């Protein structure tokens, strides 16, 4: 674990930061920078202490961002830091390596931050705001940034980052569930891109029966967070609701809820999907699809690059991407994505905020869209033709119907666990969909009441 070395280093950094921060604070309030400073560093001693007090925030901050690479050359974090340091020569950003697994990132951040340390700015899953806010692991960005800033984002994103009236995360990039398909095979059999599940099942069975692919439709139904993503798409499709409107009880145990799980099971029972989807995460599905063994795949749009990479894919140039199918007509796409969070322990809040603002500026968002195929979060970059160019994921975006996971509760991880473990149990056939939904619903109620594990 590379992160194990962080606390020590960031402690040294911290001392340096403390000096720099007080200088920075003084000038922000002095020259009225466009960063509303709010109660910024709270009790930090003000007073101009340095000669650089005329230039804006300065000093060193640490940034722990998840890795996005194209062709294993440069990481998006390094590229952003390079651009940022050119624009803000007084601030130095040190990139901290993070684990490559979301849950491990969360546990690393939790231990670091609750021990009073951790990176100044970190990237985190967009389902974290409620949990992190409730646990005091993230500082409210809305204390430092104005509504004008939050208005630059695409609709819906800021609501997802809000907990009890405060915004805790600046959306960095989004990603959605999509249907990847083999355009060459559909054409060969004279089939349209399926818009409904029935069409998808039929097309899968036709093409597999002809021996053109081993599997029809591969998706993620393993016992993990991604299983919840796949599941909420179908739940939205059958008009089931996970939580009631107040968000304090489960409303899953309904005919609609059972219908969603039965539909998911039907994908396997009809022969369209292999039984092994119950063990599939993103990589297993991608391996089969990129290996030319599956006709259809549900996966994140961000994997388009992998599927179109000669080194990892046998189906380059033969694939297309579309909105998810539904019960009747286009279905729902889970929204995923990452945002930037501010560590409440940060001693250089102004520099940290400047970095967050920069990463979500049109300029940086266009860079990440064009160079790293990441879907921008700010409207200006989303509407820029340069972002959509060479990015078919952006091109289908207008047709996509989005569905968020029920993440506005601090116990979301337990809610999600109830969803994916019971979904998975039903997919393996050990319980019926109706029993799985009942069990999930009870576990969600237990989680919301705080009475159980």
């Amino acid at each position, binding site marked *: 674990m590379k992160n194990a070395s962080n606390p020590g280093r960031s402690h040294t950094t911290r001392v340096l930061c403390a000096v720099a921060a007080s200088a920075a604070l003084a000038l922000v309030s002095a020259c009225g920078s466009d960063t509303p400073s709010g109660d910024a560093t709270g009790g930090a001693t003000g007073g101009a202490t340095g000669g650089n007090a005329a230039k804006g925030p300065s000093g060193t901050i640490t940034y722990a961002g998840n890795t996005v690479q194209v062709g294993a050359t440069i990481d998006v974090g390094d590229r952003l830091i390079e651009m940022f340091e050119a624009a803000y020569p007084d601030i130095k950003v040190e990139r901290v390596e993070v684990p490559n697994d979301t849950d491990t990132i969360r546990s690393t951040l*939790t231990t670091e931050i609750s021990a009073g340390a951790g990176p100044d700015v970190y990237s985190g899953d967009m389902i974290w705001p409620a949990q992190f806010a409730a646990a*005091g692991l993230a500082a409210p960005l809305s204390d430092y940034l104005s509504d004008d800033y939050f208005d630059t984002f695409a609709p819906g994103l800021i609501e997802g980052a809000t907990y009890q009236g405060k915004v805790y995360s600046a959306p960095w990039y989004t990603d959605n569930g999509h249907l990847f398909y083999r355009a060459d095979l559909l054409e060969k059999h004279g089939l349209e891109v399926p818009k409904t599940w029935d069409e998808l099942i039929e097309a899968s069975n036709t093409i597999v029966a002809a021996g053109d692919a081993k599997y029809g439709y591969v998706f993620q139904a393993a*016992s993990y967070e991604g299983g919840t993503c796949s599941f909420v798409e179908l739940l939205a499709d059958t008009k089931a609701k996970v939580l009631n409107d107040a968000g304090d009880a489960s409303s899953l145990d309904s005919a609609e809820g059972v219908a969603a799980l039965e539909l998911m099971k039907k994908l396997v029972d009809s022969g369209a999907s292999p039984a*092994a989807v*119950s063990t599939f995460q993103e990589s297993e599905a991608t391996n089969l699809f990129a290996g030319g063994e599956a006709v259809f795949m549900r996966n994140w749009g961000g994997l388009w690059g992998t599927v179109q990479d000669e080194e990892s894919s046998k189906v380059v140039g033969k694939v297309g991407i579309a909105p998810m199918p539904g019960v009747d007509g286009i279905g729902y796409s889970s929204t995923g994505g990452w945002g930037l969070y501010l560590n*409440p322990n940060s001693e250089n809040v102004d520099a940290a905020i400047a970095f967050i603002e920069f990463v979500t500026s049109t300029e940086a968002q266009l860079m990440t869209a064009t160079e790293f195929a990441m879907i921008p979060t700010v409207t200006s970059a989303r509407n820029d033709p340069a972002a959509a160019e060479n990015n078919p994921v952006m091109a289908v975006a207008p047709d996509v119907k989005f569905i968020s996971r029920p993440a506005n509760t601090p116990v979301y*991880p*337990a809610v999600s*666990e109830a969803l994916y473990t019971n979904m998975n*149990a039903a997919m393996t056939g050990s319980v019926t969909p109706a029993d799985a939904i009942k069990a999930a619903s009870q576990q969600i109620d237990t989680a919301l009441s705080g009475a159980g594990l």
Partner: protein
Amino acid sequence: MVIAAVTGFPLIFAVVMSVSNVKVGGGGFDFSGLTLDNFEIVFKSEKWRYALAFTTFYTVVTVLAELVLGVLIALVVERLGASRGWMLGLLLIPWSLITVISATLWRYVYAAGYGVASWALTLVGFDDPVILGNSTSAIAALMVADVWKTTPFVAIIALAGLVSIPKELYEAAEVDGSSGWRTFWSITLPLIRSALLTAVLFRVLQAFGLFDLPFVLTGGGPGSSTTSLAMLGYNTMFTNLRFGPGAAIAVSTALIVTLGCLAFTRVFRAQVGSREG
């Protein structure tokens, strides 16, 4: 002193955490109250009861299998002459692999579609088996991976015990016309019992803390059928950020395994002792 502090602090911290209302926060942990609520939450939870049953079952089966196989391997290796060193080296390979890495290897073995084990099962008539997609076979798969990795450890400890048995005893037994089987039960086994006790205790402690194998191979699934106590504690603490109940799981697990080991040591001593007498 330093060692005591390094060992003691996390232990005491966990115990304190398990009996407090814990709040995480930017400024550190905030403890309040003295409460048994955390333990109540844990003991009343069906998830915990399942994890306890699963972990216990897993420990008993894997440790027994490793004990039997380990002793058999040790008996064979002991008879090898010059090649014993090589054999030992080979034996140590699985044991020396980091579990996360060996688990990743097993993931390929078990993978549906292209895994060797799945392929082998299709040969004997299973149609497209999904080894990790069924509770029973997933548990069995974890056990096989565990036995593969840790049998060498038991074998080597048993071997150390075997080598220390004086040759004269075997010669005397032969003169007395004792059968091989009888010799094994009356001489070999009693004389390696303390070596075996050590091996078993080490294995029980490790197996009861089962974490990395299911973490890599199944993620606790299918459903939550391979969620061990350690995984449940980890999820409770670091995914759900519920430190109080998480610490209660850790503390109760430690108590259970300690009591289990103590009980086992007594029974084992009495058993083998009575055989001797």
